């Protein structure tokens, strides 16, 4: 979201999401304020110099300040989380610089001891969009062409969490949650394990959130979300907004026993089923 530079584009997409997701209007002011706090100001340099921990810190604290305005009770937690993320980023990026891979390293390290993973995921992806959004995000010397273009972003290597269907052909287009690059992938193939057996794959959708289908693979137990927007006219949608408007699907996916293939957790529960453990089948309505 923070890779969008034009306020008009953002407003058009928010209007679309307000139509498609019944409760999106509840988070619209928050997202708008986050965008206002980060993008137009000097926090994000329009000349796109190298990402630095100082810029990351400025962005994270600006976001946490906005979050604190909307929920003052969580202000200390948001600020503490932003501070911890900055410290961890500083530690992991000391040798190789600040890249999406180091962002994910920091996320992985912090997620081991955290409960509110969804808030950490939000901060991480917002930071990624501000620092790397829309630009090739490989460290110098890395050969992006060698990266496996399955679920992994050909620019930065991060695994996709959501996708959409291309207008016209209907091919699946994955999107990187950190640098927001898009690439095509085979429709009936798991992006994470390469499974092509349609019997062990499928999708589910929730009543009231028809545009979001959660595709799963029973072989690797991973899920990713696919947004059906082919009949929506207008400019290319900001999938991140659709993702935020359908977070309930992530919660339900974890309850159904699936894990996010991107390793970014968007549910707010810690159960025995998280982190690839035995799935909780008690509420599952999965087809055999």
């Amino acid at each position, binding site marked *: 979201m923070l890779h969008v530079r034009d306020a008009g584009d953002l407003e058009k997409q928010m209007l679309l999401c307000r139509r498609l997701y019944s409760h999106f209007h509840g988070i619209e002011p928050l997202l708008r304020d986050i965008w206002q706090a980060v993008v137009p100001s000097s926090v994000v340099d329009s000349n796109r110099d190298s990402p630095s921990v100082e810029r990351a810190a400025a962005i994270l604290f600006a976001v946490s300040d906005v979050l604190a305005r909307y929920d003052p009770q969580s202000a200390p937690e948001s600020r503490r989380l932003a501070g911890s993320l900055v410290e961890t980023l500083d530690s992991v990026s000391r040798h190789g610089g600040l890249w999406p891979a180091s962002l994910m390293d920091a996320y992985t390290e912090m997620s081991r001891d955290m409960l*509110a993973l969804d808030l950490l995921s939000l901060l991480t992806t917002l930071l990624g969009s501000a620092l790397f959004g829309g630009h090739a995000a490989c460290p110098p010397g890395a050969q992006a062409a060698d990266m496996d273009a399955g679920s992994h972003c050909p620019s930065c290597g991060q695994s996709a969490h959501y996708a959409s269907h291309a207008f*016209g052909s209907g091919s699946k287009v994955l999107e990187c949650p950190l640098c927001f690059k898009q690439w095509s992938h085979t429709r009936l193939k798991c992006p994470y394990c390469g499974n092509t057996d349609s*019997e062990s794959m499928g999708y589910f*959708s929730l*009543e009231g959130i028809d545009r979001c289908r959660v595709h799963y693979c029973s072989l690797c137990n991973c899920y990713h979300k696919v947004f059906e927007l082919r009949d929506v006219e207008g400019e290319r949608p900001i999938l991140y907004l659709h993702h935020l408007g359908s977070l309930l699907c992530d919660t339900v996916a974890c309850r159904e026993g699936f894990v996010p293939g991107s390793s970014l957790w968007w549910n707010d529960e*810690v159960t025995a089923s998280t*982190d690839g453990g035995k799935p909780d089948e008690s509420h599952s309505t999965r087809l055999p």
Partner: protein
Amino acid sequence: MKVTRRDFLKLSGVTVTAAALSSFGFREAEASDYKSIRISYAKEVTTICPFCAVGCGIICHVRDGKMINAEGDPDHPINEGSLCSKGSSLFNMMNVYAEKGEARPNAQRMTQVLYRPPYASDWEVKSWDWALREIAKRIKDTRDKSFVARNAMGTTVNRTPALAWLGSAMCNNEENYLFHKFARALGIVNIDHCARL
């Protein structure tokens, strides 16, 4: 070995909800409403369009054994996601639209072998085994009765004008080639294809 907070909770088998994005309004329902949320599962399966010999790829969406949607397969090398008007109507082989636009199973779709004996007015349900045996028997009988070894000018023709053969768009070139060979071997000269392509 250091045990993290997450590990401790996982090992104890409890479910804990941490107040996080929910407090900012990011979720539409509380976790306790999970059981009231209707979840609909479906699968995507690939098939080939039956209407002509081009053989476009189609992705069918199936729920509870019934097709709920059909679209072109973008990864199929022949059509790359596009479908002509005939292929796009595949959904209507199974479903028709009622007065208010809702899709209902197409009552006209054939799901079993039906046979109407000569001079009868009703259709009888028959098994596939009976049907295949009967078809083979009648081909043989018709060929024997109508076979022409030499035409009026005395030329050897070895043909049967009373039979016709249609190729199938659901079969590939190699299969249709064998069918054609078989038909010619029987002496059939009235040969065509369902798609004429």
